[in-house]
C-alpha cells in the first residue's frame, strides 16, 4: 500500500479550475517529482494535500488514514510536512529558534528541541548562520531554513516546493545529497516540485507532469522527458530546444 494516496482532488477558484481531478500515489521511501509549467497548479496541489486549502472533491490518505480537510497543523502532526516556495521564515527570531519551534511543535521537549535544532541546522549547512535573525538570510539560506524546519518535525512525508530554485549549481549539490540521504538513512518519503530538470532526473523515482490543473502524464523520469506532450507543454515549444 502506498504511504500517500491522493485521489481525484479538485479545487477551483472563481470558476477557474486550479486543480482538476488529480490523483497520485507515493510509496514509502520513494521520491516523486512534480513538474509542470508555471501556473499548472503545482502549488495549489501542495496546498490541497497539506491542508492549507480544502479540496472541493477527492480524498487525501496518509498511511491509510483519511486526512482530507485536516487543518495544516494536524497534517503536520500526522507526519506530513510541506515547505513553501515563497520562503516563510519566522522572521523576528534566529535561524536556530525557527527550527527549534518546529521541533517543539512535533512534541519534542524544550530542552531536546534546541539540541535537535542545532543538529539539523548543521546538517542542512546553516551552521554559521544559526544565530542570525532569519529574515536577513539570503534566498539560499531561506531555502535551507525551510528544509531544516520541515526536518525538525521528523516527517514521514516531506512536500518540498522548489527547494532548489534560487540556488547556484554549486549550492544545489549538497542539498540534493541531503535529500538522498534523507530517503536512504531516515526513510523519509519525498514529494517535490521542481523546475530544475537535472535534479528531477537525478532524484525522482517517478515524475508527475501537471498542466493547466490536470495530470498530463506520469512515469519514470526518462519516460516523461521523452514524451512529446511534455516537451510541448513544459520544456519548450520545439523539442530541438532542449538537449534531453
Amino acid at each position, binding site marked *: 500500500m502506498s504511504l500517500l494516496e491522493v485521489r481525484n482532488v479538485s479545487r477551483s477558484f472563481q470558476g477557474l479550475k486550479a486543480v482538476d481531478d488529480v490523483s497520485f500515489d507515493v510509496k514509502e521511501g520513494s521520491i516523486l517529482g512534480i513538474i509542470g*509549467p*508555471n*501556473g499548472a497548479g503545482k502549488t495549489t496541489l501542495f496546498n490541497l494535500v497539506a491542508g492549507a486549502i480544502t479540496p472541493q472533491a477527492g480524498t487525501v490518505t496518509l498511511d491509510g488514514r483519511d486526512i482530507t480537510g485536516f487543518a495544516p497543523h494536524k497534517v503536520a502532526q500526522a507526519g506530513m510536512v510541506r515547505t513553501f516556495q515563497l520562503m516563510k521564515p519566522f522572521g523576528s527570531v534566529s535561524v536556530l529558534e525557527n527550527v527549534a519551534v518546529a521541533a517543539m511543535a512535533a512534541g519534542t521537549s524544550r530542552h531536546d528541541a534546541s539540541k535537535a535544532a542545532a543538529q539539523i541546522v548543521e546538517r542542512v549547512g546553516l551552521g554559521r548562520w544559526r544565530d542570525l535573525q532569519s529574515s*536577513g538570510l*539570503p*534566498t*539560499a539560506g531561506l531555502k535551507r531554513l525551510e528544509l531544516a524546519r520541515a526536518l525538525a518535525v521528523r516527517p514521514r512525508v516531506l512536500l518540498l516546493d522548489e527547494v532548489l*530554485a*534560487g*540556488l*547556484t*549549481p554549486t549550492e*544545489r549539490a549538497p542539498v540534493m545529497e541531503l535529500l538522498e540521504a534523507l530517503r536512504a538513512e531516515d526513510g523519509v518519503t519525498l514529494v517535490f516540485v521542481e*523546475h*530544475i*530538470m*537535472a*535534479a528531477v532526473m537525478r532524484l525522482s523515482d517517478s515524475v508527475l507532469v501537471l498542466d*493547466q490543473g490536470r495530470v498530463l502524464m506520469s512515469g519514470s523520469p526518462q519516460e516523461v522527458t521523452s514524451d512529446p506532450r511534455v516537451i*510541448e*507543454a513544459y520544456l*519548450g*515549444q*520545439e523539442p530541438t*530546444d*532542449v*538537449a*534531453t
Partner: protein
Amino acid sequence: MLRLESVCAGYHGLQILHEVDLEVNEGEIVALVGANGAGKTTTLRAASGVISPTSGQITFQGEPAGGLRTAGLVARGLVHVPEERALFGPLTIEENLRMGAWTQRKTPMSGALAEVFELFPVLADRRRQTAETLSGGQQQMLCIGRALMARPKLLMLDEPSTGLSPKLTWTVLEAIGMIRDRGVAVLLVEQNAGQALRLADRAYVMESGSVVLGGTGAELADDDRVRAAYLGL
C-alpha cells in the same frame, strides 16, 4: 540607449548584482536569460529606479538614470513591466490603460489607446471589464498595453510568460516583436529561453549576479553554456 556599467546593487546590504554591464540599443530586443536567482529581476529593478545601485553607472539616452525616481524615468520613456504585473484589479481595462498614460498629460491618449487595442484586440472587447476578471494571458497583455500607453522608448518586460500556457506565451512574444517593429526597444527577461533567444536581436546570460555571456540571440540559442546556465544541465 540604455547602458549599465559595472552596476552593483542589492537589498538590505545583501549584494545581488556584481558589476553588471549591459546595453540596449534603439529598436532592438535584448533578452536577459539565466537561472533563477541569477539577478535578472534585480537588474531590471535597478534600471527602472525601483532600487538604487550601490555603485556603477546607469545611463538612459545618454543621461544618468541610476537612482532616479520611477516617475521621472517613465516620463522619459523607460517603462518597467514587473513579473507580478501590478495591475489595478478593481479598475476597468480602459482605466488601467488611461492610468498608464499618467505621465503623458499633454498628449491626447486616444491614439495610444487605439494602438494598444489594435495590438491586443481582446482588450478592446473588454474595455469596461475590471482587470481582475481577466485571465492570466489577458492580464499580461493589459500590463504590456498599460506600459505602452506611456509611449515608452524602452520597455523592460520581466517574465511576461509567467503563468501562461505555451500558446498564450507565443501570442505575447509575437506582440513583443510587433512592439519592436513600432520602434520601441525591449529588454526581455524570460524563462522560455529558447523562444526568447530566437525572438531577441541580442542576449545576455546572467549567472550569480553577473553577466557571463553576450551575443546575438541565435548564437546563444545554440550555445551549450546557455543550456548549462539556464537549464542546469
